[in-house]
Every structure is written in structure tokens, then in C-alpha cells.
């Protein structure tokens, strides 16, 4: 089973990288870019075949290491 995890900065946490990308898109002439937020994406291959167990395991991984829940949110998709 494969887990796809998206980690994004919480609302209100300053994202200077997103801001820089936003500026660069403007310089390249892309009009109408209102806001850019940068995040992280992980693909995790799991030996587990039980969906509920896999979901619980990946949630624990996110809480313990993959995301810093002080500043980040995470979103898990199992495929």
C-alpha cells in the first residue's frame, strides 16, 4: 500500500519561500498570482495491506516525525 502525505504550513505561519516564488512568478509575467504557499510531499510505500492499520501507522509517523504540528498540518491519502 502507498501513502501520499502532504505537509503544509498552518495558516498564519510566515512562508518566505512561498513569498519568493510568488515574486518570481510575477517577474516572469504571470499575472494574477495572488498567493503562493509552499509545502512538502511524501510517498511512503507500506508493507501493510490493511487500510485502517496503514492509516493509523501513517498518522503516527506524521505526528512523530514527518510534520511539526506546531507549525504544520498534514493530509494523508492512501492508494
Amino acid at each position: 500500500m502507498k501513502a501520499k502525505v502532504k505537509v503544509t504550513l498552518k495558516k498564519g505561519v510566515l512562508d518566505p519561500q512561498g513569498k519568493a516564488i510568488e515574486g518570481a512568478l510575477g517577474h516572469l509575467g504571470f499575472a494574477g498570482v495572488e498567493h503562493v504557499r509552499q509545502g512538502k510531499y511524501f510517498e511512503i510505500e507500506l508493507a501493510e495491506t490493511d487500510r485502517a492499520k496503514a492509516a493509523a501507522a501513517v498518522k503516527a509517523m506524521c505526528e512523530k516525525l514527518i510534520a511539526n504540528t506546531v507549525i504544520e498540518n498534514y493530509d494523508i491519502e492512501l492508494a
Partner: protein
Amino acid sequence: MKSAVVVFPGINRERDMMLALESITGQKPLSVWHTETELPKVDLVVVPGGFSYGDYLRCGAIAARSPIMSDIRAKSLKGLKVLGVCNGFQIITEAGLLPGALVRNASLHFVCRQVKLRVENIRTFFTNRMAKGAVVSCPVAHGEGNYICDAETLARLEGEGRVVFRYAEGTNPNGAMHDIAGIVSETGNVIGMMPHPENMIEPLHGRTDCRPLFESLLAA
């Protein structure tokens, strides 16, 4: 005063820290590798600066989950003094020993220069030889030193006098909230700071402003 310095792969300031501890406290610190599961009997453990695990995932994130950190966390709850400097601050914050987080500098640039630090709290084990409000020079070298926390935590830190060091005279190098450069835990035995006091203690460093910080350890 017995001390230990923890070493992770990618750490590079451990020798400066050990020299500072030895030359000022008169006792050679022990070096502890991150895979150890138990700290030797010491009064202070220092988590030094560098780039543990190449700053992969988030600065300090992987080091914070290494075997030795479990024992550091357990012993810190029993009063062991812990000092985290630069990457060490990031590591102990990731490990949950201090609140908040250190994120990318607002400027997006790595900063390597001297800043001014105002000592805001002189009741800690690392500042008891300082004068309240004293401003000292200290080097910084980091790309992710921008301290952030939620409004409630910030109000608590300020209300309880737990901001130990603040960037002064407009020298905030990273955009940290309230110019926060260093904080202390509620229990008073864990301090984290982004600047490198171990690099401002000898005439060869250009200035010796930060010697009294290490001298404070002798009184603590």
C-alpha cells in the same frame, strides 16, 4: 560542574563548545554520540550547533528523535540542565523541550554576522553573572532562526520572563517574533538560543562579551 556535549552526524560546532566549557569551567566535557541511550552523570548537557542530518526534513527534526534524546528528555524532567545552541536550539525545540519552532529566516538568506543581544533574564543558569539589560555582541550563523509560536505561548513566555535573550539595536537577523534570540523552559533548566556565545569568549574571537555566560555555569 560536569558537562557533556552531544554529537550527531553533521554537527560541526561541538569542538568550539567543548573548548569554551573546558577553558571557562576548568573541566573537560564528555562527548556523547547520538546513538547512546544513556547520558553519563553530568550537571549540564549541551546540544551544539551545526547541520545535523544535513538539515533534512526540518532543521533538527531527525536528531530530535535520536536515541540519546529520550534520555535527555527524561533527565531534563528531573532537573538536568540542558543548553541548545543554534542547531541545538532547533533540536531541543523539535524534541519538545521548549515551545515554538524555528523557521526559515524572513530574508531567506543564511546570516553569518555579529548581532547585539540584550540579556532580559538574569535568573538562569547561563545568565546569572550578567547585568539585567546588558547588551553584548555575539555571532550568529543560521538559515532557520526565525522563532515563532502561537499567541498564547508568546504571551506566556513574555509574561513569565522566559525570553532570556533578545536581538537588540535593530540587529534581528531572521525576523523572530519579539526579537526573540533565546528562551528558557518553564522549569528554568532548559535554555535554547540561536546565537553562538562559544565563539565570543577569547581575545582571538575579537571580543570576550560572552565569557560571563559560561562563568554563570560555575555559580549555577
